[in-house]
């Protein structure tokens, strides 16, 4: 770190003391590095050291004290622009190289084509929002700077999605910095290659295309390799970048690039540039961009970790689903193999009963497979109900008719008690049919073979804008610990008969209708499912 102390002298003149080698001692004695012949200054008054915090001023037990920006200090970090006072002597502290002084930023004057590239290390750019002078920003006021950091904070707090985070930050940056184009690049996890993750240009409000932007790789490489914030006011004439291909092709007049630091390494960069001469960037623009980079580096890293976790969880869920499906399909396949074995045996022996039995088993299992596939499809995608006016009673009746034979065959009673006052309702008839089919199948399965009873009722309570379909059985009931697992995909208490999908699908269909399912169950006594559905399509 280099800099200088500029002593303000009466009459508006100043005297400059370079800060090159630390420590620098200040005092009245001639042995000091900076001698101040002022009686208010002690013989050995203070010293300036450079350590890992930055540049620090330490009072050496002076009589009149050392003041930084008006406050008496024993030891304090000094920053660029601070006022340091020893007795009557007041210094302006300048902690970047002298040519970086704000008012010395070269004008983008085509007659001079002045070279003005600054590359600053993070230490040199230790800035907070308040350290940025709004006057130095080409596009913003102090209030805007504070607003900027508030908004950035909000984006960082909320962002779980990397794209959302990056484009939010980029949009915000564009509000503050007069760039024509900008992008955020992240290092590829395997190759380390910097790749554009979010980009935008000022002309098109939001340019999502990642390929759309060609950036100055030369400037980017320099910033990410060296870990420095780079500002170049005219890249085409810069010694380091002038000859570089990408700079010439794109005629970049001003560019800034700051590294994004993760916990251990540089994980990416923010890059902005401008092709228009009137748009020049200032050191304070660079500071602002650097501050943005410092804030989002860790956030980006966190978001990536979150994403990786989510992916792992999804994979685990997919794995579970596949295992669940595998189990269902194997059981159905077992039925089909059995059916065809019995069928074959019947054909070989010319026994009609065997043929019939084998055929029944085959076709029963083929329709189980069909049901499974339908349930899988219904479960796998979110869908809006296709509303139509239908007689709710006739939807339920269709299901009851379908299952009546099966129930009777198993010695079970299936009863339907419709509420004749119900009439037409606005539902997705096919979905509700599927939902009731699954509930009724479960109810029949839950009943003991002899003496089992399943009652289905429709009810339209007075003064309510909902109707109910109630399925009650006197079967085995649901254990308390299993109640909360109901509706979880691939959870089944039916042994090899259950897919663990039927009830999940029913729950999903009801929730798509903005209805609800209530379960009342007592083990050994039976279960009642109450499906409550709006009479009409709910308004959005």
């Amino acid at each position, binding site marked *: 770190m280099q800099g200088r102390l500029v002593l303000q002298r009466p009459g508006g003149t100043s005297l400059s003391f370079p800060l090159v080698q630390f420590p620098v001692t200040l005092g009245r004695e001639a042995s000091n590095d900076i001698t101040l012949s002022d009686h208010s200054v002690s013989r050995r008054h203070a010293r300036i050291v450079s350590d890992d915090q930055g540049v620090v001023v330490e009072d050496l037990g002076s009589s009149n004290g050392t003041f930084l920006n008006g406050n008496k200090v024993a030891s304090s970090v000094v920053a660029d622009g601070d006022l340091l006072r020893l007795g009557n002597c007041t210094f302006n502290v300048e902690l970047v190289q002298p040519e970086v002084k704000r008012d010395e930023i070269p004008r983008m004057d085509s007659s001079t084509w002045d070279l003005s590239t600054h590359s600053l290390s993070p230490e040199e750019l230790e800035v907070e929002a308040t350290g940025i002078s709004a006057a130095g920003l080409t596009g913003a006021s102090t209030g805007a700077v504070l607003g900027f950091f508030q908004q950035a904070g909000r984006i960082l707090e909320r962002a779980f999605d990397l794209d959302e985070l990056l484009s939010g930050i980029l949009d915000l940056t564009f509000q503050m910095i007069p760039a024509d184009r900008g992008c955020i690049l992240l290092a590829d996890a395997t190759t380390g290659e910097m790749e554009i993750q979010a980009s935008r240009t000022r002309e098109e409000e939001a340019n999502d295309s990642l390929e759309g932007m060609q950036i100055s790789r030369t400037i980017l490489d320099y910033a990410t390799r060296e870990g420095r914030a780079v500002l170049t006011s005219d890249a085409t004439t810069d010694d380091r970048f002038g000859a570089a291909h990408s700079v010439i092709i794109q005629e970049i007049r001003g560019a800034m690039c700051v590294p994004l630091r993760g916990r251990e390494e540089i994980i990416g960069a923010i890059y902005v540039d401008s092709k228009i001469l009137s748009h020049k960037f200032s050191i304070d623009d660079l500071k602002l961009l650097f501050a943005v980079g410092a804030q989002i580096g860790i956030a980006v890293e966190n978001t990536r970790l979150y994403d990786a976790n989510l992916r792992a969880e999804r994979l685990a869920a997919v794995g579970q689903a596949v*295992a669940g499906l*595998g*189990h269902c399909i*194997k*059981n159905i*396949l*077992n*039925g*089909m*193999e*059995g*059916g065809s*074995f*019995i069928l074959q*045996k019947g054909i070989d022996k010319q026994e009609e009963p*065997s043929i019939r*039995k*084998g055929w029944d*088993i085959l076709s*029963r*299992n083929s329709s189980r497979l069909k049901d499974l596939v339908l349930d899988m499809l219904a479960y796998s995608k979110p869908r809006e109900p296709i509303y139509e006016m239908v007689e709710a009673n006739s939807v339920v009746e269709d299901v009851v008719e379908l299952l009546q034979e099966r129930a009777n065959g198993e010695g079970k009673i299936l009863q339907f008690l419709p509420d004749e006052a119900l009439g037409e309702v606005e539902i997705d008839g096919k979905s509700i049919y599927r939902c009731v089919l699954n509930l009724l199948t479960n109810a029949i399965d839950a009943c003991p073979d002899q003496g089992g009873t399943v009652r289905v009722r429709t009810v339209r309570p007075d003064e309510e804008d909902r109707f109910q379909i109630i399925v009650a059985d006197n079967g*085995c009931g649901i254990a308390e610990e299993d109640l909360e697992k109901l509706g979880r995909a691939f959870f089944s*208490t*039916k*042994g*090899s*008969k*259950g897919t663990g999908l039927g009830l999940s699908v029913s729950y999903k269909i009801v929730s798509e209708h903005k209805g609800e399912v209530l379960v009342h169950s007592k083990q050994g006594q039976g279960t009642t499912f109450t499906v409550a559905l709006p009479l009409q399509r709910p308004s959005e």
Partner: protein
Amino acid sequence: MQEGVRKRILVTDDEEDAREFVRAVLEDDFDIITASNGEECLDMARREDPDLIILDVQMPVMGGIDVFVALKKDDQLHHIPVIMLTGVREKTGVGLSKEEMGDCFGEEPNDYLEKPLEPSLLYDVVCQCLGDRE
């Protein structure tokens, strides 16, 4: 199999189709009795004294593994060989492998077959189990 020494096999599976499959494979040479749940299986085992029990793992209420443990704890039923059937691959979910079951319960089933069943394999395994016993 010789006439006159027909052995009796108790097939336990909650799915009728699966029971019928096993019956069709074995009925020509063995007497088949069936149970559709774990409790029924234990009752029938006590009543009928079968020579072999074929037991499905995934059954509601009382699963095949619970039934197996109950059989092995029961002095009267302990001697009956057991072949287990499962639609879940060994070592996943409910599927303890034959050896793992031995480790857990001190007793191994005589065999452990996966669904979908291979009829000739089932037949061979059954013959082997019953042969072992003689």
